[in-house]
């Protein structure tokens, strides 16, 4: 099986600050891979480095066998798309949903926008009634669906998901997670999901990497995690924390 994404010894530095320190991982085609950690653990930065939004100080990132340079080609963005955490911040407040979805098509010179937009909205369960609305007329969950539609409209192979549900209510989170799973099954997509929520990552991913202070802590499968076959104390700590408050603990 081929690797959709390979990261080796990635280092990301911002001035004197080392945000990511020697992370290596490989994600197989069609796999769903999770990155877990607290804020500041560098998990989002790894994702941003793949997307070309953070500088690669050292190490390499390869997508589909091709090593990425300093810039990303148009072709790269047709294959790799990203969904951001905050659906309030990632949609242009003065563009209609229609325009938000038409833009990537225009950038990549893809025709029959009309049909594709209708199809994309349907796929994320919004229907065409939302097409000419503005983001402020939508709820958080609906906005996140638009952001997913915008990523999917270019028919990418890899989706980078940066905390796609942490700004949403629990019930809406369930809907969006179900949508993401369904889309992945239908299109055979590769996911890299970043989250601070162990339960969400285990639910969505087959394997996951726990990070702390920019360094990889432990790579394990979701099955291992669910069965509590955990090697490192930090992962155990995260595990305990995700189980809720215990008096006297």
């Amino acid at each position, binding site marked *: 099986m081929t690797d959709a994404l390979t990261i080796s010894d990635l280092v990301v530095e911002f001035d004197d600050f080392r945000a990511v320190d020697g992370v290596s991982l490989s994600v197989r085609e069609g796999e769903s891979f999770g990155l877990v950690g607290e804020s500041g653990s560098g998990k989002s930065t790894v994702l941003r480095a793949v997307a070309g939004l953070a500088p690669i100080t050292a190490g390499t990132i390869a997508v589909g066998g091709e090593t990425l340079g300093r810039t990303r080609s148009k072709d790269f963005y047709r294959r790799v798309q990203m969904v951001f955490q905050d659906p309030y911040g990632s949609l242009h407040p003065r563009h209609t949903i229609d325009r938000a979805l038409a833009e990537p098509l225009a950038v990549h010179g893809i025709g029959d926008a009309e049909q594709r937009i209708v199809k994309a909205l349907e796929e994320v369960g919004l229907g065409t009634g939302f097409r000419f609305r503005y983001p402020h007329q939508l709820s958080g969950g609906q906005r996140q669906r638009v952001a997913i539609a915008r990523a999917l409209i270019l028919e990418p192979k890899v989706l980078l998901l940066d905390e796609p549900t942490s700004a949403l*209510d*629990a*019930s809406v989170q369930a809907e969006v997670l179900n949508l993401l799973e369904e889309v992945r099954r239908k299109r055979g997509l590769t996911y890299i999901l970043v989250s601070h929520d162990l*339960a969400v990552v285990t*639910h969505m991913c087959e394997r996951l990497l726990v990070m702390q202070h920019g360094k990889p802590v432990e790579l394990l499968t979701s099955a291992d995690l669910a069965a509590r076959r955990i090697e490192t104390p930090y992962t155990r700590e*995260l595990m305990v924390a995700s189980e809720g408050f215990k008096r006297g603990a």
Partner: protein
Amino acid sequence: MSALLEVENLRVSFPTRSGVVEAVRGVSFTLGRERLGIVGESGSGKSQTGRAILGLTPPHATVSADRLVFDGIDLLCVSAKERRALRGKRIAMVLQDPKFSLNPVMRIGDQIMETLAAHGRGTGAEARRRTLAMLEAVQIRHPERVFRLYPHEVSGGMGQRAMIAMMLVAEPDLLIADEPTSALDVTVQLQVLSILDKLVAERGMGLIFVSHDLRLVSSFCDRVLVMYAGRVVEEIAADRLHQSQHPYTQGLLNCLPKLGQSQHPLPVLDRKPEWAA
């Protein structure tokens, strides 16, 4: 247990261009010196309930209730001045995000001392001593150093501890915590909660814990009110949450992915119009 707070048929409504929006529609509960959780999704009216008790409802909104009594004081007919005297001194509120609710241009120590001065609970060296003791009580390791820092110089967890310190330094009888840990990392969340838990227990305060996280609330509180569309749909003892009767409460519990239980797809809430009725 004598009631610290009695709320009966509380209503909060906002006039908007497209008509009156009722955010809270007839909420009733009594609170002793216990931990009460209020849970619901965004827009369920949980935060507005907390704000109405404190008198922080925006001026263009209307608050009405059959009864809103705090420790024998009728909150519906006290003057703004008396209300102000209660706020911070006897009823305090911890807000969600320390980034937005601390004064960015004032040192943390000075902000806490200001609380003391405002409520006539000490000034000068005495206030400083109490502030440092309070910072220590919320497990800040170097209180002297943090005292001199500005909010942007501390982490989220530290900021939230500073806010809790500020709210508790005047020794209120009732603490309303509105999503006090939602902006924090899971591991920090638990530390902050255990600090809150300890202080509330030691000082015999009443606590209203407002959150969207049903699981967290049930592990922290004694009793939980579940709100939907401005109403309380269910009241239940936290340790009996798994026996909840209302489909909304069950739905909220079930829609969370659980470690060690695979369920694909996740059950989603099937909202029924009669829940809001």
